[in-house]
């Protein structure tokens, strides 16, 4: 039995009033003259005993009346059957600690509201005897994710709980709660803003593991925030361009407007020792836009900074996004050719070298460029040479020894790029017999086609424009016919070879093949304009540059981590995190092999670390999934839970309201009405006993007979 307004029970002290009145109060009797006391005397004597009993009865009735009225006012609630009726009461608290909870809800943040709600739950008169606390984003401290009767410890843990910058996983928390409730009957209290982005209710609530839970555990949804906050955030950051020292790249900044109003924001790129670069961005309501911020990768070491927007929105921590990455060293390319003994400016080696690095010798010291090219004779190609380069371009090399072939395979497998061009010296038979099959694109045949102004030419009729090598180079298919090929090596491509460009006679012109961590490219025509007009087209230059920078631009540049992620760190030995530059944060985390798992409560920022003689920086940013803080309204939330067959779901904006509603509706019978009826009945009995109601009809006075 519980009371909704237990403080009203103080009124029970008034029960003493009738007792005191009966004991000490003497009413002042009015005086009357009467014809005779003959009958009154007799009536008094006859009723003496009854009046004595009546007085005691009246006192009891009046005490009972006051007691019943007091109890009715306090609204006693009896618990329903099942574990409600038991003395033991357990609660599983799911506390949303995701950073969307930092949005203000009244004077406090939603998280502070939620935390206050949990503390109130533990401090109530009918507080659960055992409580478990599950956090939706951050890992729950050990010992609290199971039911414990150490309420003081729970209170301390909740009081010191901090926001997590990781994405909330309420489904995992709810599943954990269901598991606990299956072991020990318990009520579940979810304190959250019920952010739509985090609460995938369709998936979360229709989980079969919740079936027992749905029917048996009351679920209280305490909304820490009523309305969806207006929020602007930088939700993504990526590098467009080769991550190579000397290259120019674009930081692609995704800015999102999660409010219902159009906004114009100033986006800033902040780099150390560099004036901020600002761009104004118009963001219509509920949209995202990408803005490019150019960055020159000319300096040595890490590029670290932040992109931020100036707003005055509800959630501040996602207004800046940090980044840190280390550009790769300049890519070294070896062009293998026999051009040294010729003055022909259209020799394949020269054309290719010029395409890869356009700088003169003088410019090489003053102008940064991501590629450094050396020309090597085929005879000088060996394992030692391959160790000094990142990419090898073979221009019409006639053949090679099996040892060199093997060295090339190892080179490719370790991440190197090998690109073959056909040429006058190209011997298909030698290639087929000496070259390792992992380098071969398929079956090779002798070159076909004649060269000359009147010689026939084949046009390119298909291009895989979705491939990284060719993507974005073509506006439309009309660009294809500009390439004419007069002589080429017919190839029957193998299954593991991807054809990127084909001629109208169906033979491939350009192919790619994955070998280990590296790539092998095949061009079936020569890198000289003598066999085709390919080197003169707009495709040739970007294709060879992309092939050379393949490894530098391939894959995601690890520039930003979310708290809770594993961050691989370069270097060896124990990590030591240092006090950082002005916008870096101190980080705590669990060191792991080759990296660290950053605590999800670590505030976003730049983290500088040192490992032995190696120093590095990595960036932490809040999980963008939390930035869209639109939350479910009460009806919507309740409908979803009911649709998922949750039998006992109660919702409200504060704990007291929810519990009161639940008490009235479900937790048990409210005896107020019955007590009020009993009080009325007692009052009537009191009136009858005290003869205030003359229940007997007056007898007619007969006249005489």
């Amino acid at each position, binding site marked *: 039995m519980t009371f909704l307004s237990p403080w009203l029970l103080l009124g029970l002290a008034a029960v003493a009033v009738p007792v005191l009145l009966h004991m000490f109060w003497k009413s002042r009797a*009015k005086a009357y003259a*009467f014809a*005779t006391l003959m009958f009154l005397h007799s*009536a008094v004597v006859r009723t003496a005993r009854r009046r004595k009993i009546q007085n005691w009865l009246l006192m009891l009735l009046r005490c009972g009346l006051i007691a019943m009225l007091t109890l009715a006012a306090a609204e006693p609630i009896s618990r329903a059957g099942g574990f409600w009726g038991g003395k033991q009461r357990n609660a599983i608290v799911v506390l949303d600690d995701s950073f969307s909870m930092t949005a203000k809800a009244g004077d406090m943040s939603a998280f502070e509201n939620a935390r206050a709600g949990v503390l109130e739950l533990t401090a109530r008169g009918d507080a659960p005897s055992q409580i478990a606390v599950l956090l939706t984003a951050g890992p729950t401290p050990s010992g609290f994710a199971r039911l414990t009767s150490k309420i003081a410890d729970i209170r301390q843990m909740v009081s010191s709980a901090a926001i997590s910058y990781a994405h909330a996983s309420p489904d995992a928390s709810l599943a954990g709660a269901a598991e606990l409730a299956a072991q020990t009957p318990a009520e579940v209290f979810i304190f959250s803003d019920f952010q739509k982005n985090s609460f995938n209710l369709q998936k979360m609530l229709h989980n079969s593991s919740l079936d027992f839970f749905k029917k048996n555990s009351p679920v209280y949804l305490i909304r820490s925030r009523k309305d969806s906050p207006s929020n602007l955030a930088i939700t993504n950051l990526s590098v467009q361009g080769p991550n190579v020292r000397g290259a120019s790249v674009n930081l692609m900044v995704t800015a999102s407007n999660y409010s219902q109003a159009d906004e114009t924001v100033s986006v800033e790129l902040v780099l150390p020792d560099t004036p901020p670069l600002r761009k104004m961005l118009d963001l219509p309501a509920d949209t995202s836009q990408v803005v490019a911020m150019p960055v020159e990768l000319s300096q040595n070491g890490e590029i670290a900074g932040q992109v931020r927007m100036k707003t005055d929105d509800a959630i501040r921590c996602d207004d800046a996004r940090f980044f840190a990455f280390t550009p790769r060293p300049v890519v070294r390319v070896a062009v293998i050719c026999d051009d040294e003994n010729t003055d022909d400016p259209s020799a394949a080696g020269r054309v290719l070298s010029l395409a890869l690095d356009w700088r003169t010798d003088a410019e090489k010291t003053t102008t940064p460029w991501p590629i450094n090219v050396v020309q090597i004779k085929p005879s000088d190609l060996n394992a030692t040479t391959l160790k000094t380069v990142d990419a090898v371009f073979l221009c019409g090399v006639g053949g090679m020894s099996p040892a060199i072939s093997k060295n090339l395979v190892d080179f490719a497998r370790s991440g190197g790029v090998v690109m073959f061009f056909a040429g006058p010296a190209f011997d298909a038979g030698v290639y087929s017999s000496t070259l390792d099959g992992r380098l071969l694109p398929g079956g090779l045949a002798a070159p076909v086609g004649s060269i000359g102004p009147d010689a026939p030419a084949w046009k390119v009729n298909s291009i895989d424009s979705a491939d990284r090598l060719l993507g974005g180079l073509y506006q439309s298919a009309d660009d294809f016919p500009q390439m004419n090929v007069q002589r080429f090596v017919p190839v029957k491509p193998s299954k593991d070879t991807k054809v990127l460009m084909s001629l109208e006679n169906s033979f491939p012109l350009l192919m790619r093949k994955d070998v280990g961590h590296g790539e092998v490219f095949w061009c079936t025509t020569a890198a000289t304009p003598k066999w085709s007009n390919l080197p003169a087209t707009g495709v040739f230059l970007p294709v060879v540059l992309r092939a050379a920078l393949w490894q530098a631009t391939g894959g995601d540049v690890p520039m930003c981590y979310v708290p809770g992620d594993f961050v691989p760190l370069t270097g060896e030995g124990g990590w030591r995190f240092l006090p950082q530059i002005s916008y870096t944060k101190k980080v705590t985390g669990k060191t792991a092999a080759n990296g660290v798992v950053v605590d999800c409560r670590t505030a976003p920022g730049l983290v500088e670390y040192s490992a032995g003689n190696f120093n590095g920086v990595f960036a932490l940013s809040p999980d963008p999934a939390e930035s869209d803080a639109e939350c479910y309204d009460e009806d919507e939330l309740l409908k979803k839970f009911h649709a998922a067959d949750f039998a006992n779901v109660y919702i409200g904006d504060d704990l007291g309201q929810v519990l009161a509603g639940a008490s009235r509706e479900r937790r048990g019978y409210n005896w107020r009405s019955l007590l009020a009826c009993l009080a009325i009945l007692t009052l009537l009995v009191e009136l009858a006993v*005290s003869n205030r109601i003359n229940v007997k009809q007056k007898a007619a006075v007969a006249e005489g007979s």
Partner: protein
Amino acid sequence: MAEKNTYKYFQPARAAKLGKLSLLARQCVEGFITGLHKSPNKGISAEFAEHREYAPGDDTRHLDWNVWGRSDRYYIKQYEQQTNLRACIALDCSESMAYGDGGRLSKYEYGCFLAGVLAYLMTHQQDAVSLAKLGSDLQDLSPASSTPAHVDRMLRELERTVPRGCGNLPVALHTLADRLQRRGMVVVISDFYSPLDEIVNALQHMLHKRHQVIIFHVLDPSEIFLPFDGQVSVTDMETAARIEIDARAVRDEYNRQVATFLASLTRECHQRRIEYVRAVTDVQYDRLLLKYLAARRGLK
């Protein structure tokens, strides 16, 4: 009757409504003049009673010559004698009769009105009326007379009298019974607040003296149903005794006791052929009498 005079306890207009009704004795009464009532003596009257054989000394005027002609015997015709009534109106003058509640007439005033009208009716039919004032004993008994002057005196006496003192109705009735020499009608007007057995004994005494007894039991309505509420201190008007009661607690018992007393008195009267009339003061006395007299004559 002294119409020029006004009386406190007599309203001629109301009495006139009852003027056509008579209050006849239901048994033989001993009067002193010829009247409406049956006398125990045979005498001169228009109403034949019986034949009796002539005896020397009888008045020959009463010989029935028709019988002599048929049977050659002398018979005397005898007739019922009718006489006037000697009525005694016995009014309780104890202090309890002064009780009246709610602006109504006190019981004494009500009784005086009854007595006045009854006296008027009786003298109107040539009956002699006397007035007896009852207190702790018989306080006063006026001689019977049928003259208007006597009624006037009676009414003035009632006006002068103030109900006072502790009453003892049985003793007063016993004394009255002893004082009334000739049988007649006794009308007792009282609240009868005495032990029932003593009252019955006193009435029995009256009956033993062969009086016809009519009782007017005068009660205020608030005496039948206890009027008080809550804690009250009640003083007896006759004895000045005081009692504090919770009226709500004793009301039922009081009402029950009064009802029992009334029922018992009524029953005892009926058993003794005493006419019992309950006169509750919230009923107008002339209406009460009209109803009573009409019922007595078998009229509706």
